[in-house]
């Protein structure tokens, strides 16, 4: 680990960085700036004046109305704030403008360093077809299959044997599931091919059918890379991201319980090849689809810092945001691949403002009570605070709770313990969902894939209420009425609260008023 220790900041290190983002990631980058002795500049829309990132930054500039298109996505206004503040670099965070090559171009044209890859690398990886054409030359694995129509049953049999069952027959002209057949073995292939061809003929007037390897509920595993501007590229281990709801990641962990050291090494090497073929610099992530037999296929590259980067930070002991800034300032990577050692296990829970008991409807509003967990192996990257009103305009991600332990079991146990301590009142959050996942046997055995969460949610959760706790609730209800009566009176709409200070109190007053209307 000696060699990973940072050298002193180069004289060309940035003096001031503007963070073109909001919420927890803006706070995360502001913290890194402070640690590196760099001034930080926040930008904010009308509804974010009281947001945490504005409170934490050294400087803050208003950039427009709540709609993202007129604020956090508005290149001119952000560059104007950068010029006015004298920032010499911009960190885009994730989302918003982070993968917008026009923005990267505009920063370069304004003489402000964009902390991320070049616009050219971003453009190349942004187009799936261009990326595939470019990467096939670099011998990168894609989901195998034929790219032209099958001419005979014999050809189908031989291709299927070569790529392995199950396979999917797909109509070349297809769409909407028409002309598609899932085939598990060679004995089914003849009839499946015939019916797929005739169905395609009827539906599209074209019976051409091709064959592709079927990935059923694949795993989604990604590899973190870092590349400096002097030709060095390293990989920092994988992240298991299969637990998703509607293609939105919910819980990630590193390492993946499915990946052994040999597979990790092979995935890492492919990821490095992808990055090098694209001329990629700074932090990036290569996403793979993985089947049950540990075959992995390139899916896409994310040309930015990921939401789930903390789990890699915990298992590598590196600070990815520090490294992003140093790389952008022209420093060489201060370590080689051989220096990277993965230790322990990290799991991240994405705390969203949504109601798990009501089809995950968004739940913005005022946070009336916030009790935050701490203790061994717990990291919390949060953009919320008690009294803050979660705006309705943006992504519902409030915070990330990350558990770290010497192994997967300990990391999970620490998270369960911390989730028990975590309380967010006034709005609904998905905290209870993570208790379900972490206590689920399938999860504990590491048997997760992209279909896992839907399977879990389809089951009725265990009834957790019991008569003893209900009695405690009944007694507590009375005790609150005696010991903490102010808010009760307010809620009943009778006490004209005149406390001008607390935002919480005024929101209660409002609640009280509405209740009084009943």
């Amino acid at each position: 680990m000696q060699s990973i220790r940072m050298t002193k900041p180069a004289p060309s290190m940035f003096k001031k960085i503007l963070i073109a983002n909001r919420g927890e990631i803006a706070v995360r980058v502001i913290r890194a700036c402070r640690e590196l002795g760099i001034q930080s500049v926040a930008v904010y829309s009308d509804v974010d004046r009281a947001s945490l990132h504005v409170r934490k930054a050294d400087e803050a500039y208003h950039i427009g109305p709540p709609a993202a298109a007129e604020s956090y996505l508005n290149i001119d206004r952000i560059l104007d704030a950068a010029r006015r503040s004298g920032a010499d670099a911009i960190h885009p965070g994730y989302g918003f403008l982070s993968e917008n090559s026009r923005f990267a171009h505009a920063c370069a044209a304004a003489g402000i360093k964009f902390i991320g890859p070049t616009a050219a690398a971003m453009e190349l990886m942004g187009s799936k077809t261009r990326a595939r054409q470019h990467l096939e030359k670099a011998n990168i694995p894609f989901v195998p299959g034929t790219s032209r129509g099958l001419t005979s049953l014999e050809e189908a049999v031989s291709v299927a044997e070569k790529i392995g069952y199950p396979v999917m027959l797909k109509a070349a002209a297809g769409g909407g599931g028409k002309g598609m057949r899932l085939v598990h073995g060679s004995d089914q292939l003849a009839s499946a091919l015939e019916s797929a061809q005739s169905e395609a003929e009827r539906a599209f007037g074209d019976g051409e059918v091709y064959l592709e390897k079927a990935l059923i509920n694949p795993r989604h595993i990604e590899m973190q890379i870092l590349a400096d501007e002097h030709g060095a590229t390293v990989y920092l281990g994988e992240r298991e991201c299969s637990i998703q709801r509607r293609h939105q990641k919910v819980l990630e962990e590193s390492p993946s319980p499915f990946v052994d050291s040999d597979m990790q090494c092979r995935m890492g090497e492919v990821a490095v090849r992808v990055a090098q073929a694209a001329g990629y610099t700074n932090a990036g992530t290569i996403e793979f689809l993985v089947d049950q037999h540990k075959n992995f296929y390139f899916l896409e590259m994310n040309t930015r810092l990921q939401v789930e980067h903390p789990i890699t930070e915990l298992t590598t002991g590196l600070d990815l945001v520090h490294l992003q800034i140093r790389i952008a300032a022209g420093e060489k990577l201060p370590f080689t691949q051989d220096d990277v050692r993965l230790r322990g296990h990290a799991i991240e829970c994405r705390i969203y403002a949504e109601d798990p008991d009501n089809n995950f409807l968004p739940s913005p509003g005022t946070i009336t009570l916030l009790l935050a967990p701490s203790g061994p192996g717990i990291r919390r990257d949060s953009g919320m605070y008690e009294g803050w009103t979660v705006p309705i305009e943006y992504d519902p991600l409030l915070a990330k709770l990350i558990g770290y332990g010497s192994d997967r079991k300990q990391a999970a146990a620490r998270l369960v313990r911390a989730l028990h301590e975590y309380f967010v009142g006034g709005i609904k959050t998905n905290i209870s969902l993570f208790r379900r996942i972490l206590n689920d046997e399938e999860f504990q055995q590491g048997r997760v894939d992209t279909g896992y969460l839907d399977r879990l949610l389809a089951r009725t959760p265990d009834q957790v209420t019991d008569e003893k706790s209900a009695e405690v609730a009944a007694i507590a209800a009375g005790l609150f009425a005696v010991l903490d009566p102010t808010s009760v009176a307010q809620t009943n709409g009778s006490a004209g609260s005149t406390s001008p200070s607390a935002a919480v109190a005024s929101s209660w007053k409002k609640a009280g008023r509405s209740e009084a209307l009943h």
Partner: protein
Amino acid sequence: MTYDITIEGKAYRLELNRTGEGWLCRLNGRAVDIDAVLARRDVLSVILDGKAYEVKRERTPTDMHLWVGSVRYSAQVRDPRSLRSRTGADGAHGPRKLIAPMPGKIVRVLVKENSEVDAGQGLLVVEAMKMQNEIKSPKKGVVRKIIPAAGASVSAGDVLAVVE
């Protein structure tokens, strides 16, 4: 003091009186030995038969919940002597006000004033965090009033409509 308390629909009668050292507490007539400290606003530490519980109180514009550990219970408290106490707000009779459950923007108004609606029929669509949510009628009846127009912003707790 005597309270009528409902937890998850189940009724309890709680008698709660301070003594010099602590509390005299009877739940449904049965004496219970308790010790309680208000740790901070909305957070109560209760010791009951040697077991320690942390109880959190949460209020939204429409209801109150108590969390015992990590389990949430809906709760209503009624002091039988108090005129200000909550009355049966969910009676099927009389006008019912439709309250915005979350802040958001009114995308569409689905019904006209004075039209007849069924229980559960969508009246307005509110957008928050890029998701659209239908606000449904709490009862069968006639829409006496629709307050916000399409495009208006509403806060949690705002009255959206009155159904009679």
